[in-house]
């Protein structure tokens, strides 16, 4: 969107402007005639400019045939003809380019809405929506890849799954994911393990394995690169102190247009500036007893939070076991499918309610900076969600394979239920969190005021939702479809809720650093966890024997072994086998790689230390240069003064010479 101006209009001489004005007033045939009559003796630059400008004025689609005619006929002014042709071509390309660009810009997803949000609420709230859009793109890519490489070949071939005749579609499947859906291409179980012989030999096993693994590896790479670039921009080059005065002053948000918001920001900035001034004084004034009390509060709240997180995890585990027993014992009496919704319901309820307790603890604690407070809150929320997810995954990996013959679809269904119920609770959470708070804040208890959009909590919610999708891709290849719908609806819901219920944030948050933290969170506990779950499933667990693309194998990775055996039979692809045997399967290779990487890290670390020392030295040098400069200036001034003194005093001496010749 770079605006670079062509200074033609401003810098052209007035005679050309007059010429243009004349031409514009004429009819088109007259214009052409006038161009023909242009003296060829202009300087080339001026000529080009002028002709181009004329073209801008009169380049019209309707005139195009006339120009062709004109260009055909002219044989005298060859130079002018060629010039006109080239310029005409350039103009056409440029105009065409403009139309394409404007159309493509207006098609870019949600661009206008994001600009509006960024303008009204600032960049910290915009981070949430940017992240949401980014994750949506991940899911769209996943859906395309899965659908294209796995589902379409299955549907096209004769091996598409058949639905048994006594199962029909009831509405409950949308919530539970079982029943009718179990027999569709939604889950792992419906995929076959055959090789389709058609135009090409399409091995479904390899396709399934490679599609999922390549997608996960690509996701990981994208996350690593964006995390690294974000880290470099916002952490390594940034100032460490969060409360430094310049940082506060330079981060004034110019895009706030609301008068009240501006005043609030000014108030908060003043408070923050005063805090930054008094921070050092405050720290010294704390007595030992106050410090002990502080540490006691920290210890207590951390203990409580960890206890809550662990307790939630344990309760989810026991709930899963209870559900298991219920399923085994009563088959007919209650609705067994509706019972399966119990665990997701409880999990989502915990995810919604427990963070409120964490916020409550946070209010009692006094951290030295606002940043540490946000980090502590984030860490506790992450701990809660990781512990719940960890317990669920442990249950799925250990207990489910023994209980069911076709266990992967069961895990897929459990994940599907989690995703759907999580979505319902997100909507409810938006209702309670924002709408009700707004009502309470404006009508019932005006002292509380209109709520702000809690960016950290919302971001963590969508990161958690995305993790569920990542875990579920292996067990249910079409889960991204649900995720796409979910994020799409969530975007509009949050946008409406934001504009109706929330006010712009009062404090200028460190949006760029928070963005780095969010991407880091997305990668390290959540994506890495999902990847390790899928990897563990593929490596250690035995696939179910009667369903799915990996039936009959010892573990999923043996697909690669079989494929390498096949490849080995052809002599032209021996290099693939060589790579597999000596690079991927050998331990020496990984050992060497690790050693090399460690050495490189050490070298770069030493480089960084050297650069830091260099920066200190350079700063001293700048100070010295400044001193040198002022010393030289002083010397120059002294010299000037003394030379003036020398040139002025003789005249005085001569004037006074009659009185006292010996004075000087």
């Amino acid at each position, binding site marked *: *969107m*770079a*605006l*670079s*101006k*062509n200074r*033609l*209009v*401003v810098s052209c001489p007035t005679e050309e*402007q007059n010429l243009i004005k004349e031409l*514009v007033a004429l009819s088109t045939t007259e214009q052409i005639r006038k161009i023909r009559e242009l003296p060829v003796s202009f300087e080339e630059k001026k000529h080009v400019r002028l002709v181009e400008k004329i073209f*801008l004025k009169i*380049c*019209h*689609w309707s005139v195009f045939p006339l120009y062709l005619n004109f260009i055909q006929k002219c044989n005298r002014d060859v130079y002018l003809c060629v010039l006109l042709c080239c310029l005409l071509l350039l103009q056409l390309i440029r*105009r065409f380019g*403009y*139309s394409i*660009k*404007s159309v493509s*810009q*207006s098609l870019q997803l949600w661009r*206008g809405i994001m*600009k*509006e949000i*960024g*303008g009204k609420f600032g*960049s910290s709230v915009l981070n949430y929506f940017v992240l949401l859009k980014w994750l949506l793109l991940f899911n769209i890519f996943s859906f395309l890849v899965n659908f294209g490489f796995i589902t379409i070949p299955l549907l096209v071939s004769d091996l598409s799954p058949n639905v048994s005749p006594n199962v029909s579609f009831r509405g409950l499947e949308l919530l539970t994911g079982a029943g009718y859906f179990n027999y569709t291409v939604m889950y792992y179980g419906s995929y076959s393990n055959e090789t389709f012989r058609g135009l090409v030999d399409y091995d479904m096993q390899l396709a399934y394995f490679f599609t999922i693994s390549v997608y996960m590896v690509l996701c990981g790479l994208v996350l690593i690169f964006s995390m690294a670039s974000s880290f470099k*921009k916002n952490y390594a080059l*940034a*100032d460490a102190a969060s409360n*430094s*005065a*310049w*940082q506060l*002053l*330079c*981060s*004034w948000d*110019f*895009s*706030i*247009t609301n*008068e009240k918001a501006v*005043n609030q920001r*000014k108030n908060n*900035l*003043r408070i923050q*500036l*005063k805090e930054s*001034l008094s921070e050092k004084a405050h720290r010294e004034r704390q007595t030992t007893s106050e410090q002990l009390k502080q540490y006691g509060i920290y210890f207590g709240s951390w203990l409580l939070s960890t206890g809550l997180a662990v307790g939630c995890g344990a309760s989810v585990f026991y709930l899963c076991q209870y559900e298991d027993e219920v399923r085994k014992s009563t088959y007919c009496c209650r609705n067994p499918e509706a019972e399966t919704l119990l665990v997701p319901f409880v999990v989502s309820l915990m995810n919604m309610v427990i963070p409120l307790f964490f916020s409550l603890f946070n209010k009692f604690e006094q951290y030295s900076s606002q940043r540490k407070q946000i980090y502590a809150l984030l860490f506790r929320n992450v701990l809660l969600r990781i512990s719940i997810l960890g317990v669920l995954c442990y249950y799925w990996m250990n207990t489910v394979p023994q209980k069911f013959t076709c266990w992967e679809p069961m895990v897929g269904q459990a994940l599907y239920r989690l995703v759907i119920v999580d979505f319902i609770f997100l909507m409810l959470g938006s209702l309670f969190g924002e709408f009700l708070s707004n009502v309470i804040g404006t009508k019932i208890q005006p002292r509380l005021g209109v709520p702000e959009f809690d960016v950290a909590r919302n971001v963590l919610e969508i990161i958690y939702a995305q993790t569920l999708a990542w875990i579920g891709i292996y067990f249910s290849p079409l889960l991204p479809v649900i995720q796409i719908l979910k994020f799409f609806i969530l975007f509009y819901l949050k946008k409406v809720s934001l504009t109706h219920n929330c006010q712009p944030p009062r404090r*200028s948050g*460190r*949006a*760029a650093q928070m963005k780095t933290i969010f991407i880091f969170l997305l990668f390290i506990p959540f994506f890495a966890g999902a990847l390790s779950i899928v990897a563990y499933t593929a490596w250690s667990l035995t696939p179910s024997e009667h369903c799915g693309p990996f039936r009959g194998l010892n573990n999923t990775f043996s697909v690669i072994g079989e494929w390498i055996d096949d490849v080995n039979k052809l002599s032209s692809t021996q290099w693939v086998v060589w790579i597999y045997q000596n690079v991927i399967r050998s331990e020496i290779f990984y050992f060497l790689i690790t050693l090399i990487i460690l050495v490189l890290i050490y070298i770069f670390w030493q480089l960084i230390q050297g650069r830091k020392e260099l920066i200190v030295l350079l700063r001293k040098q*700048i*100070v010295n240069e*400044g*001193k040198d400069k*002022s010393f030289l200036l002083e010397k120059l001034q002294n010299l000037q003064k003394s030379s003036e003194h020398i040139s002025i005093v003789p005249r005085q001496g001569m004037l006074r010479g009659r009185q006292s010749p010996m004075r000087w």
Partner: protein
Amino acid sequence: MGTTASQLAKDSLSEYQVNDHLLLENAHRRFTELLDRDERNHPNPRVPMEVILTLPELKSNPFKTRICQVFSTSEDKDGSLTFEDFLDLLSAFSDSATLEIKSHYAFRIFDFDDDGTLDYGDLEKLVNCLTGETEDTRLTSEEMRQLISNILDESDIDKDGTVNLSEFQHVISRSPDFVSSFALFLFYPVFPAPNDAVLHCFI
């Protein structure tokens, strides 16, 4: 708007090698709304500062007068803007302007006395602009002195008591939020009016 001169202005829009077509059209529309009827026939109309400051995007900005003065190219330094100055303003505040451009203009905006450096007086005015002008919202003079000495400690590398452009840019480069906060968004509808779009496809 069917007169020759405004057609001229509209056609000249394409001379601005703009990648964001929508922004340019919208800027043109908003600018012409600020003009009087008779001024629209002028080849290069100039809008006085008071009218520019009625734009909702600038109305509540604490630096509105400085912004107009910095981007104005008039000889009397009265803060009036032509359309090109307006485009300069929008491009400096857009999200595609580089850090150098933004820090350059930020420096000029903060330099209240236009002497090329930020000295004590400039910094004091800056802090007052951002914390409030009234008596009960100002910082006390002691706090102000302490604050400005903190600022100078951080950013005055050559210890001459003022912050020049390079030192300012050095501080800005360590502040990753600056690029996203130093931005102005012109409110505009997502799709341009249909007749304008058709015209620009063919002209």
